[in-house]
């Protein structure tokens, strides 16, 4: 045997053993990825992007006021971003003027012409109108916002007042309003929030006036039941002790019946026409709430939820598949906004929703 063979063998073995741990030892020494994993530290508000944009632009406000007084347009730099300050309502979003600009700060009314594509964020002190087939990256309006037919917002849109979506307009990402969102037929959305969300027929923005109570709220016997039990109409899920009714398989509450329980069905769940469930409903499969029925607790569903015509759901509606909402349905109330969460959502015209609607893939207003 060669005298250096054991040494060579030992060396080769040592190298083979050391090789896999070399990156580990290097990382221990360099500590290039040794900080804690970032956890979510914001409060999860939908208008977070809008708030950040407004805060960021705040230092430019005196400059914008000067532009407004002189009715001109000027450029400014802020933290490496090019910002176009617009002090006139005659601005036509000309491509040459907006080239290289990350944000448009508009001190007057913003009129984005039909067919125009604006790939910058837009901030408007006044009302904002998006023309037909126009497209925006993101926008914050301090007043009302109107999206023309077939117009699109790609990232987020927030208005401190009302937002009107004309037929077939779409807002991808976040859509939020300080007062109300009005959506017409064929509109698309993903994540929206407002004290009041109304789906309306074209030109009929008065449908479902805010003062009109839902049939369920107006029903005296229900009010009496609730008052006798010393509860509020909504939001009593956690203050009232209700029996838990667990059903293996399908469950059906007959039409017109009232049940004061939390129902869990491992199959499908069906609340009959005009029936009332004072507690919450959970089903592993689909849930059907028939015409005129009311659920005062939450609706949790492993499949698809169908809310029939003129139904009322006081608590959250959470579906792992889709939520289909028929004309005249109402979810939540002004005093107690709630959440509809699903993979997809299809909402008919004539519905009134309060709070948040999340359609993780896509939400539509029935065409």
């Amino acid at each position, binding site marked *: 045997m060669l005298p250096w063979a054991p040494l060579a063998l030992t060396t080769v073995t040592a190298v083979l053993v050391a090789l896999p741990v070399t990156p*580990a030892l290097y990382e221990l020494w360099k500590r290039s990825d*040794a900080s804690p*994993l970032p956890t979510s530290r914001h409060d*999860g508000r939908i208008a977070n992007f809008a708030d950040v944009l407004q805060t960021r632009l705040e230092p430019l406000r005196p400059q914008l006021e000067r532009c407004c007084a002189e009715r001109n347009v000027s450029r400014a730099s802020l933290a490496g971003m090019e910002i176009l300050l617009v002090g006139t309502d005659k601005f036509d979003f000309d491509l040459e003027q907006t080239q290289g600009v990350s944000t448009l700060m508009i001190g007057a009314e913003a009129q984005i012409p039909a067919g125009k594509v604006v790939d910058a964020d837009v901030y408007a002190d006044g009302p904002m109108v998006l023309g037909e087939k126009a497209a925006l990256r993101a926008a914050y309006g301090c007043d009302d916002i109107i999206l023309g037919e077939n117009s699109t917002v790609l990232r987020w849109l927030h208005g401190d007042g009302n937002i009107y979506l004309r037929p077939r307009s779409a807002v991808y990402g976040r859509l939020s309003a300080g007062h109300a969102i009005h959506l017409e037929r064929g509109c698309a959305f993903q994540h929206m*929030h407002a004290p009041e969300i109304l789906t309306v027929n074209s030109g009929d923005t008065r449908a479902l006036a805010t003062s009109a109570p839902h049939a369920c709220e107006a029903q005296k016997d229900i009010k009496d039941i609730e008052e006798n039990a010393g509860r509020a109409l909504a939001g009593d899920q*956690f203050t009232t002790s209700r029996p*838990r009714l667990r059903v293996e398989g399908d469950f059906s509450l007959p039409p017109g019946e009232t049940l004061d329980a939390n129902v869990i069905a491992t199959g499908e769940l069906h609340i009959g026409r005009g029936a009332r469930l004072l507690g919450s409903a959970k089903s592993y499969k689909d849930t059907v709430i028939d015409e005129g029925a009311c659920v005062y607790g939450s609706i949790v569903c492993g499949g698809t939820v169908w809310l029939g015509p003129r139904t009322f759901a006081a*608590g*959250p509606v959470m579906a792992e598949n889709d939520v289909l909402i028929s004309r005249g349905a109402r979810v939540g109330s002004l005093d107690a906004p*709630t959440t509809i969460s699903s993979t997809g959502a299809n909402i008919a015209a004539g519905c009134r929703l309060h709070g948040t609607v999340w359609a993780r893939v896509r939400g539509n207003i029935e065409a």
Partner: protein
Amino acid sequence: MLMDLFCLVLLLICIYTFRHYYFTFNRLFGKQRHPYVDLESAAWPEITVLIAAHNEEAVVADIMKALIEADYPKEKMTIIPVNDRSTDRTREIIDAFAEQHPLIEPFHRVGGKPGKAAALKDAMTLVKTEVVLIFDADYIPGKALLRQLVAPFFDPEIGAVMGRVVPLNVGKKSLTRLLDLERSGGYQVDQQARMNLHLVPQYGGTVAGVRKSALEEIGGWNENALAEDTDLTYRLLIAGWKTVYENRAECYEEVPERWPVRVRQITRWAKGHNQAMVSYIGRTAKCSGLGWFERIDGLLLLGVYLMGPVLLLGWVLAVVLFYTGAQIGGGLTVLALGAFTTLGNFAAFFEIAAAARLDGSRQRIRLLPLTLFGFTVSLISVSHAAWQQVRENTYGNLFGNHELVWDKTERSRTAPVLDDALSPTVPVLRESV
């Protein structure tokens, strides 16, 4: 006889290996379930937050500060620091906070049975709300965490909820870096996969919540349980309540920085888990309200800390059989390849790799080969714990009739990490942490 035993060991190893691969593939390629994460607007219920504290002067200010700043309606929130017979400045710090913030209602426990479960049981007499959240004193919740933990309780079937634990002191020691990887694997892959597959996510006792009526229905906290969290998970499961895992409800914690502390921690977990296994394996197997997959997962979860001694037994048997000339064939290969993938809560290496990818962290994955050290220490610790329980062979010990102590993990933090933790201002996490 030995051969039969060896085959049984191999079978168990294969089952647990398959389980871990299945979880990992589900997490990487399967449909992900986060059914409550979107709940933004709701009639949020009144809640009580219990902070379990025993000699926590170094850390208790941080969590109270963070909870006060949490994004949850203050009028619907009560914080009860459960100060269990502390002998340091814990009481003084808690009282100082309570003076400034009326929502803090301290519970200073001066007597009674020792242990976290006993302290929580006593504190429950002060709880008036249906939803109760529980934190250990060394945790630092983020602003949205409380709402994330409360959201699942809108589901009438949910009895308990568990959030994700994220180590804060990662960069301190090699051990903390390994534990960071292990925690990622355990939560990001194991717990979330069980959530995806409608199996049995585990209530972990901190960064967690429980429905009071469910707790009362099952008889309250079991003060004789060594691991009150596992005990609660199974009692709820058997009673028809579900536990859910919220992967995005993340909260910082402090992990052990010294190996002896880690050994004591995992020994305590193993003993508590084994105690729960003895108590609930039969009832879980026979529980009629559970689906088959849920039941099987429940049983496998109960057995995770038993896999340490089983694995050691397998290695001993393999050596013995080899030298006695028995034909063990491919069994040795199965043992060698499967061994590292069996230990339940310690996250197999491919789970860690998958978790690192899901977390978007790139460089820490280089430490993967070093997890072998953590695995070895865990293997020996849990085997030793099981051996102690068998050797003592006292049913009293297994079933918890012995004297319990508050056996908490030693803290490494010596001072608050949030800026001005003792004054009522917005906390900012110091960069040096």
